[in-house]
């Protein structure tokens, strides 16, 4: 029992990120409304960010900012185990920026499509297109 529990504790974060990603992907493929799709897309992207952040997490470590930076200045030794991984955070900053740029542009596209077709439902759009 405790094995199972420890396994769950050890891995649940990864499992839940997978579930979140599946939700996003499903929304992206199956939803009919374009805005919903865009939301799905963002959930999908955030799930990946969650994954990276989980990878970078360390037990018993603190945020990646040097404690007592102002007076220490390299005087005391820095223990790597004390701080969480800064690299994944860095990567994910970039990923967030990408996702917000994509999100903004996708929204702009949605507005544009609505201007042209007066609808955002995919089935109606398809109907409109086949009419023309």
């Amino acid at each position: 029992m405790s094995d199972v529990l420890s396994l769950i504790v050890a891995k649940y974060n990864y499992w839940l990120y997978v579930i979140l990603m599946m939700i996003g992907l499903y929304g992206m493929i199956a939803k009919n409304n374009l805005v919903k799709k865009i939301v799905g897309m963002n959930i999908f992207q955030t799930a990946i960010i969650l994954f990276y952040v989980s990878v970078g997490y360390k037990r018993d470590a603190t945020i990646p900012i040097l404690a007592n930076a102002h007076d220490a200045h390299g005087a005391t030794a820095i223990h790597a185990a004390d701080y969480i991984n800064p690299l994944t955070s860095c990567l994910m900053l970039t990923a967030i920026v990408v996702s917000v740029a994509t999100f903004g542009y996708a929204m702009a596209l949605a507005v544009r499509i609505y201007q042209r077709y007066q609808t955002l439902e995919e089935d109606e759009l398809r109907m409109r297109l086949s009419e023309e």
Partner: protein
Amino acid sequence: MRFFAFIVVCLTGALLLYGTGEFPDWGDPNSPASLHLSNYYIENALNDTGAPNFVTAVVADYRGFDTMFETAVIFCGGLACFLLLRDFREKKDHYYRHIPTGVILHVKDSQKPLTIGKEFGYMDKDWVPPDLIIKTVCRILIPFIQIYAMYVVAHGDYSPGGGFQGGVIFGSSLILLAISYDLKTLVKRVKERVLGIFAAAGVLLYAGIAALCMLMGGNFLDYSKLAPLVPWNSHHNIRAIGMLGVEIGVGIAVMAVMLIIYINIVSEGRHDEGL
């Protein structure tokens, strides 16, 4: 479609779960991900770059090249929205509000625009009088938000935050202005031209500093070669100064782009009326 989506999603999920099977435990300090590179960054960032915030050190220096393109991505986003939505055509009918009386004028011929001033004010189709409380609160808040944004930019290497976050906050403060008053107020104060120049110039500041390193004889982005340019600097790591420069660039660019995207979406590219 739903069924297809379900299958795809399940397959992907199964693949990802299968991949996690051999992962080290969550938060395991001895996982390879936390050992190979991250230790180097944690142990040497301060000496190498003078930034106690390791993330900023990695973002702006070790992987500064990524960040430059990250800024380019956001610039692209703004440019894309501009290209897609911006509509230069003049709108034919305008609504004006006669301020003293509150009478609404509908002018169909746009040849003779009324002068906006004490007497007449713009008004949108679904114009509501700005709420006094909201207006006042925002007017008081916005400068503080902006100062905070600048703090976030400038203090990026000591605390969480940096150019990007600061830029977003600054941008939001202006968006707040647009929401609490109306879009016209914002567009009047912050010209589109200024935004366009800021967006490009911000990224250019970043790329320019990086290219300057190249001109000074180093590799691209190698801030250490900038030392001769700041002779008065004695006790700061030169890399930290370089990082500050690029963070400011990022901040400017992001601020401008956020506004560009917002204005274009909310006014469908006509820059007249919005939320």
